């Protein structure tokens, strides 16, 4: 009854996932932190995304880019959550009064607020490309839009962010 080959493969797969997790989890959390603006929520989504990756690891582990799958899952979870709850959970990222921006530029809360003030689509494009180093084609696949749209969103997001933080390009 005992299938030694499969058992060994199973052990290897489990170790593979753990290696993948250790390598990618922090980056995923950071990207989500920028996306949702709340560390706890970022970890919630990251853990759920990683759970889904684990559940499908036999298939995902064999993909060219398991990392891409994890990010796509996380983005979908984020979108789904917003749709389902129909609220915007941004306790720490409420609209930023104009007077709060300039003097404290550089502070991480201000950066998060500035990122959070971007429209959803622009923010996601910015994080995928400028933070995660995806190319626009890859980001487009993750977001389900055209690469050209990613580039437009990216341009607007960078401009808005710099304006908000009074950074000279």
């Amino acid at each position, binding site marked *: *009854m*005992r*299938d030694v080959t*499969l*058992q060994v493969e*199973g*052990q290897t797969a*489990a170790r593979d996932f*753990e290696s993948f*997790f*250790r390598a990618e*989890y*922090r980056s995923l*959390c*950071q990207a989500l*932190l*920028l996306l949702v603006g709340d*560390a*706890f*929520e970022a*970890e*919630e*989504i*990251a*853990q*759920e995304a*990683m*759970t889904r990756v*684990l*559940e499908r690891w036999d298939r995902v582990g064999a993909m060219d880019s398991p990392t891409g799958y994890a990010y796509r899952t996380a983005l979908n*979870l984020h979108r789904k*959550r917003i749709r389902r*709850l*129909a*609220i*915007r*959970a*941004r*306790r720490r990222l*409420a*609209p930023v009064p104009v007077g709060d921006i300039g003097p404290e530029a*550089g*502070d*991480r809360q201000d*950066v*998060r607020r500035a*990122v959070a003030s971007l429209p959803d689509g622009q923010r996601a494009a*910015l*994080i995928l*490309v*400028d*933070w995660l180093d995806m190319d626009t084609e890859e980001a487009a696949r993750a977001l389900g839009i055209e690469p050209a749209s990613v580039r437009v969103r990216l341009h607007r997001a*960078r401009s808005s*962010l*710099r304006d908000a*933080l009074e*950074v000279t*390009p």
Partner: protein
Amino acid sequence: LSDTRELLRRGVEGFEPMPDAFERVLRRRDRKRRNQRITAGVVGIAVFVAAVWVVTTGGAFDRTQTPAAPGASPSPAPAGIDLQELERTVGDVTFSFSVPITGWEAFEGYWEPKDAISINKSIVGPQDAEAMFFWTSFPYDERTDPCARLLPSGTDLAAAVATAPGTELVEGPSDVTVGGYPANHVVLSVREDLGCDPGFFYTWDDPAGGALFPSTTVGDTIRVWIVHVDGTRLFLEAVTTEQADFDLEQEIEQIIRSIRFGDTPTTFPGAPQVDYVLDLNTGAMTPLPEAIIRSLGGSVLSGSYAVSPDDSMLAYVAPDDDGRLQVFVANLDGSGIRQVTYDPVEAISPAWSPDGMRIVHEGYSSGGARGLFVLDVATGEATKVIDVPKPGASPTFTPDGSSIVYTGGTNQQPELRIVPVKGGPSSLLVEPGGGIVDSGNGSISPDGSLVTYLGGGFPESGEVEHCGPCRFVANADGTGKRVIGGWMANPAGTWSPDGSRIVTGTGNPGGAIWVIDVATGEREQAARGRMAIWLDNHTLLVEV
């Protein structure tokens, strides 16, 4: 790009992921698998989502405070309603409540650990909720939501009611108590479509904002309680639609009355915190031998016991060295523990054959297909009997040992089926009918004359208005069915050996373990725990 990246880097400065994130992911996976198993075979029937809104306004919740009366003890369940005890923590507040188990399920949103909880029940699927409750403290971003203009800015319930758009006051505002704490209560009726999805009707002056989000429509009834627990306001809202034509009001009231604050024990006072043997005659509770407890590995998926016909051995599920669930056997005294399956994925839900020589279980073939296997305990040789694509098949032998009863069909419409041990086509064991649309989680009585199973729908018999699902007992051919009470069961040990009683649980820690007399329908809550099986006619093995 480098400038932007540097800006973004500042945004994540100081952020450290949880050190035990990997273990959390493993636990989350385990929990999901367990929930899948618990809910597999149970068709969702009516939605009743409940929510409590928690807004921390400063000050820690005082767990030492003794709530004032009323509510020193939970109200008894209305006739025909079995309860499941749930405990949740939102922020720093821990509270428990009882949920009528018929058709209800805890909704485990991934946002739950932080802010929100819901439970639901549906007759038409989760997209057509008939009622709602929430626990959350998510803020509400007025900047982006088109419904923001509808929100009043009331600082108390009366003000909120007065300014709630499109609603009519039906009852209150009144002062009541919930869980022994003062609360304000009001009942509203929705008189016009609020034009937004969701149709918010209330928020308050908390800096973070906040709004209930059910999509209310004309005809909905909204019940609101604001409970003042020291420095914390808990906001409870239940929304019922016009389609909620069975007695949801009674169930809502029961939930509200059952709310208690502070940690709740998940076992009866004095009961062991590990799986134990309960003598129903004497009340004696004896923990399982330490060797068996140790072998369970602390996994919430472990357990699923089955006792051999001669009462000498247990079969149960526990993780192997690689963390995969396998079937183990052990003598009742804890000696002779050995792993008997080496499944490439997992082996679960063991049940003994009447001759005590074989064990049927769910498992996977080396090709990865899920199925039911019959294992020769002495030789370890296993034979696949039939493919079962989904988990939750919960197989058992028929009393003559010739066939296996299991839950087949789909998650949406489970069917109690039977298949010969030697293989071949399966057949439907219970034709639901009579307003019941499905059947599952079943087993045949020791003498072969009766069958018990879960079924959902609207029984034409009128015993209860709605089953979401109910546990039935029927003749073995499916005729003469009647609602017996109780809910989930471990088919490997549902029936007492003399066939006079069945035992049911909920699958959740702290859930009610009911012992039900088959002839009279009389029932008694024997314990708290996830599940229980009969060891002999007066002894249960309780999984905590």
